[in-house]
């Protein structure tokens, strides 16, 4: 279950960013996870729920967008979708899968967060 280690890495990276931003409330973290990686989104989701408890990310939503495996065949000059577990070579000319255009992503894409505005924290004396 390497997703626990992935989650640990994710939380550490987010913590650096969170501190640099004066510790805002993070409502949602958006990840991009390629189909041609060793990461299972459901396991990652579960690990995040458990490991974010009692941290600055408690209650933060994790949104995972999966990207398909897409390769480019230089011989045919076109993209194709390899069938993971069955066929990786180009279905037209059988050239090997060399140029992966999508599917290897493991990325923290963006973060939604909110900060208190001055009206919240400033108590005027009148």
């Amino acid at each position, binding site marked *: *279950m*390497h997703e626990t*280690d*992935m989650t640990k*890495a*994710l939380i*550490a*990276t987010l913590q650096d*960013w969170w501190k640099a*931003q004066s510790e*805002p409330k993070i*409502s949602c973290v958006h*990840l991009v*996870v390629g189909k*041609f*990686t*060793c*990461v299972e989104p459901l396991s990652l989701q579960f690990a995040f729920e458990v490991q974010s408890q009692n941290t600055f990310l408690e209650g933060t939503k994790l949104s995972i967008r999966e990207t398909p495996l897409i390769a480019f065949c230089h011989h045919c000059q076109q993209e194709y979708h*390899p069938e*993971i*577990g*069955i*066929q*990786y*070579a180009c279905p037209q000319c059988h050239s*090997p*899968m*060399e140029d992966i255009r999508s599917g290897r992503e*493991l*990325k*923290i*894409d*963006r*973060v*939604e*967060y*909110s*900060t*208190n*505005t001055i*009206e*919240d924290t400033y108590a005027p004396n009148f």
Partner: protein
Amino acid sequence: MHQTFDAALGINLLHANQQGAEHNRAHFDQWGIICLNVMSSPGAGKTVLLERTLAALTNEFKIAVIEGDMTTELDANRLRQYNVPVIAINTGRSCHLDSKMVAGGIHCLAHEYNPSDFDLLLVENVGNLVCPAEFEVGEHAKVALLSVTEGEDKPLKYPVMFQEADCLLITKTDLAPYLEIDISQIEANVRQMNPHVTIIQVSAKTNDGLENWFNWLRNAVQSNTAKSVMSLT
């Protein structure tokens, strides 16, 4: 009143591990060490391959080993018989080595020895065909092993490992006559996703093919020496 924002980060999920791997690699380059990450499923023959390698090459090169296992020092003790430094790392419940663990290992090595004296560091990863492929440890090349008893379909089922490998050793070839296995099909399945990989068939039982593996290692070490000589001039 709250203001909501949306910040684009675009940071790799394994950013911290990759930074650690680059840090390790910078050390290896400074010391003139070539580091290989040796990976396979449990029981494919990593440790016996390293035994044969140490027996044959310790006269030619100064070699050190980092031995990753979830528990026990059984493998590390097998390799210590060859009088090379073997640093055992028990990963506990973790099913792979990461760059931080290997950093701890090279710290031990540098503490007890002069690391610049070494030519080759062999990192034997935890037996697993899945996540070691995603966690770089600072290696210059990835070596994967697949034994003939595992079947032709494994490269198709565990593609990331075989797509990332620079060298693939097909092991236990002495058993092939007793199995319904087509080694050329293993090779074809790997080449579908990794056409430039070097494939070497070996048997640690009969020693068949081991010389080809040793030559691959000699080449790797020599190209590293050539590189460091070039960088000095």
